[in-house]
């Protein structure tokens, strides 16, 4: 069960709203099992229906994490008009090469956080994507 400060959840929602009508995406860095920062990443697909994280921004984030000893706690993105649940596309893309569901997912220990703006107030849910393409929801424990 991921413990995520309310402040960070609000930051992800704010990002999703800021980037309307397109999907927003980003990465949550963590250390010692705790999420620390929400990092917006440019959606280079600039689309209401898909996201593609800007590769250079990802590279910088990954290299910065290596400097500070942090790790990728969660990958988040918004669905502007559908449920806060990983789509088939999201599941396929969690593997490398995409759709190779029989392999280990690219980030087995990382949460996939979905922000849905289809609801008011927006809904935020967390998932793990497992080998075989299985989706397990993990209830977020939100703390102030």
């Amino acid at each position, binding site marked *: 069960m991921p413990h995520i400060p309310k402040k960070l959840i609000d930051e992800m929602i704010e990002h999703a709203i800021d980037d309307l009508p397109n999907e927003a995406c980003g990465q949550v860095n963590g250390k010692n099992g705790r999420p620390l920062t929400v990092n917006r990443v440019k959606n280079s697909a600039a689309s209401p*229906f*898909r996201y593609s994280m800007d*590769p250079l921004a990802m*590279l910088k984030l990954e290299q910065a994490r290596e400097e500070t000893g942090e790790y990728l706690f969660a990958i988040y993105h918004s669905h502007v008009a559908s449920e806060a649940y990983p789509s088939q*596309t999201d599941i396929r*893309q*969690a593997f490398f090469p995409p759709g190779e569901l029989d392999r280990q997912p*690219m980030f087995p220990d990382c949460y996939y956080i979905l922000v849905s703006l289809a609801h008011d107030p927006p809904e935020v849910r967390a998932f793990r994507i497992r080998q075989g393409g299985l989706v397990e929801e993990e209830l977020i424990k939100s703390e102030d």
Partner: protein
Amino acid sequence: MDSKLSKDWFSMATIYIPTFFRQITEGNEYISVEGSNVLESLEFLSYLYPEIHGLIFDSNKQILRHVNVYINNQEIHELEGLGTFVSSEDQIAIIPALAGGSMTLLEKNNGNQSALKPEEVMRYSRHIIMPQVGPQGQRKLRDAKVLVVGAGGLGGPVALYLALAGVGTIGITEFDVVDLSNLQRQILHQTADIDKPKLKSAKETLGLYNPHVEVIEHPMPLTSDNAMEIIPNYDIVVNGADNFATRYLVNDACYLTGKTLVDGAILLFDGQLTVYKPGYCCYRCLYPDPPPPGMVPSCAEAGVLGAITGIIGSMQATEVFKQILDIGEPMVNRLLLVDALTMQFREMKLRRDPSCPLCGDNPTVTELIDYDAFCGSPPIEVSIPN
């Protein structure tokens, strides 16, 4: 050869290995490689770690679509691609794509699990027997809704092969009547159909081929006034339009409604094929401005080989099929150029243009515009059949 000499001959660039690949590189983050350009450097890496090769290269030795390669913070396609020179100062980074998207209409359609009837199983058996299709795929085809713009040269073979494959709902926009000069290429219409509305003739022909298919008639040209009402009812749009105004209109309307557009074009002995998907290269990225009126002749003015409509139209139907079943490599970000005279097929790589007025980072086209004015073309004449 001592190592100093080899260093003078070959540059040693450094490759940054992303976390996910480090299970292959024994945990190494940075690997020094020999090679004068990116291709040689990456090949050297795959020589050291053979498992990496299939993760970054396709069978044509091109970088896979879902892999990005950067040199010193610049994407290699902005430089000289795989041929970009590298020196010992350079850092190459491999970055697997992180992407996703919301649920599409097609995914929602998967909910309909009603079984295929024995007649359908027999009819579609040559498709169902293929592992890429199967009964599940055949149900996806049955549940799919495809809009075909125009029932002429391209729209004919597209609609025909989709109907034969059992695509459950085929919408057609068409306002013209069958003319004797259409019959050299437009396979949905026959000699007895002359002067009949093309839509009526198309529906009759498709119904004879496959009575399971529902053909929805849109007896009107697609315009800025009706496109946003018609297109959202469909999963995929196929373009068989014969004029630039409609091409820009269909492109914009598909992007704005989040639909995939399977595009084709023909003239003389030439044909083109591509697929526009929101988030990837669109028609406006490729052609920001229409050609001056009259510069590109129409098929009526310049002529067109009948069989090329069959080649391109069949390919468009194939791309729709792949989209519905989510199989293969779609013609997204790719433009196929067909020259029937030499029978050469050439492929160009396309990219989304960040400065595109429609799908770029700062779009200026946010709703449909007056496309006849934009293209400087006279409005489409609607001939009303008697």
